[in-house]
């Protein structure tokens, strides 16, 4: 059993650090102490990952993509939401503010869709499937660290006569547009490889 935390550059998405079994591969120094909890929805949407680490060595910053893997299988993908300062060397027994010094909270990729604002695309008298519209709008306006693949948006057989959602964030747009889908429970999310998906359960 081997576990890994990978961090990625926010601007480019390329690999920044790989921490294997808690140890940074580049410096061979211990960095991540433990994975406290990792929550994923039953349909694969990543919710929250908490771990304890020294940020003077991990040097993670707000918004940085983080992936958690077990035996090379992706378990979770998300972005840094709450973290200690980059000067923090971790907490000792006397520190009563240990969370501030070493706790990381990573939120799932949905957080990035809340920060992605839809522009002025409009579908008029259109027969495009609603799933394709979700894919196209995500691809156009979604955060660049998320991946959009048409195959993750299977056709629903439903289309709208007119669809436009300028100035809405993609997360709330997806929430409202999936309500149009009948014949099952529609769910959407961001999986452990940063891919956005739609599923009808």
């Amino acid at each position: 059993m081997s576990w890994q935390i990978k961090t990625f550059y926010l601007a480019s998405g390329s690999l920044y650090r790989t921490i294997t079994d808690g140890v940074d591969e580049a410096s061979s120094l211990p960095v991540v102490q433990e994975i406290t909890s990792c929550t994923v929805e039953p349909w694969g949407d990543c919710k929250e990952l908490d771990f304890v680490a020294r940020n003077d060595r991990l040097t993670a910053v707000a918004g940085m993509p983080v992936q958690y893997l077990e035996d090379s299988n992706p378990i979770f993908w998300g972005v840094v939401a709450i973290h200690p300062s980059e000067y923090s060397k971790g907490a000792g027994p006397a520190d009563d503010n240990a969370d501030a010094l070493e706790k990381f909270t990573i939120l799932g990729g949905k957080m990035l869709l809340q920060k992605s604002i839809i522009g002025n695309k409009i579908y008029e008298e259109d027969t495009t499937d609603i799933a394709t519209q979700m894919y196209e709008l995500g691809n156009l306006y979604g955060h660049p660290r998320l991946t959009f693949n048409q195959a993750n948006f299977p056709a629903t057989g439903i289309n709208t006569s007119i669809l436009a959602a300028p100035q809405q964030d993609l997360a709330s747009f997806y929430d409202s547009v999936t309500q149009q889908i009948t014949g099952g429970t529609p769910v959407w999310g961001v999986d452990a490889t940063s891919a956005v998906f739609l599923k009808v359960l």
Partner: protein
Amino acid sequence: MITVDFKEVLYKALPIDAQDLTSAVDVVVVGDKTGLEPDNLYDYDWDTVAIETVNSWQYVARPVVANYAHSQDTTYHMKKSIKLADFYNPFIKASNLSYAYDTVQANPTDSTLVIHEDGMSPTGQSPARYADSNNSTYISNPAPAGNQIYYVWHIGNTYLGHSFACIGFRLVYSMKLKSTATAPFPYVQINHVKYYTDGNGRQHDLFTIGNYSIPDTDGKLNDIYAILPVPLHWDPDNGIIGNSTTAILLNAWDANFTNAGDFKIYEFFPLMVDFSKLQDVAAAEIKLPATRPAQVVVKGYSTPDTSLTVTGYPGGDITAAVASVEYKHDMENGLITVYSLEQSTLIRESDYGQARRALDIQVNNRVKLSQQGVKSVKPLIY
């Protein structure tokens, strides 16, 4: 600036909370048409070669948005859309608009508002007479001679680009129509045109036109406005690229009046969005993460200040902005002063202050207009 010694104080690091991180902001100025409802509204594609309408649409407004992106947005890409506060006037003051008289110029290409006027009295008046926020100066119809009184505010190509700054008009007037008045009744027209060349190199003029009849007031003063943003499908996101112009026209047939002075125009000017001013409002919403938030507890009283330096900190002195100062008094410690340093929510505090000041100035200016001028965007899914 306060200076404290690390050995004398209690220094506690705080976590960096970036859940509300925002590196770019869109401020929605107008989300939909508002003010006076148009009597009729057209949104169509005129093929200039075939000389016919080739398509027409149900009008959907393109939100008028002022945006600001921080230089670090290329890293974070965290965007937020907010609605402009109801009491904020988003438009350029009429007295700050620049005007030039026009006699023939049909397609002006500069930023000046070109005015063509015909038939009203006194003639040759500067726009100050009807764009001066002064309800004692006006122009009016002369003794009826069967002319059409005709006004044009025509906004040029280059100024608008894709920003679509001119989206409406305001009119303060008094009018007393003849009891036997017949069509055409007085009306204002907002006329947006976009010049677009399709994939086959064919020239189209896309028109969005709203016609607003001017209500008869039996000689009393009335204040009306209408806002008609350009349609959503004109946006480059829908593959439509080209220059656009906006004309605002006022038409009245003087045979519908009995006497000179039955139609007086006190104010008539286009509503032009002040994008540069609104950028300040957008900038005030930027929230970037702090680098080293902390809490510093000092024994006894220490004065409030905006900056604090901790000397003797292992690894070098720290200077940081103070986000809040809190005093506590209890039996155990007596009085203590608690400084919270560098809360991420307080980044760009000074810009926020500037925006608030700009806002306070605007509050006193045409409150009524802007209160109604702002409409939020609703998503359309049906």
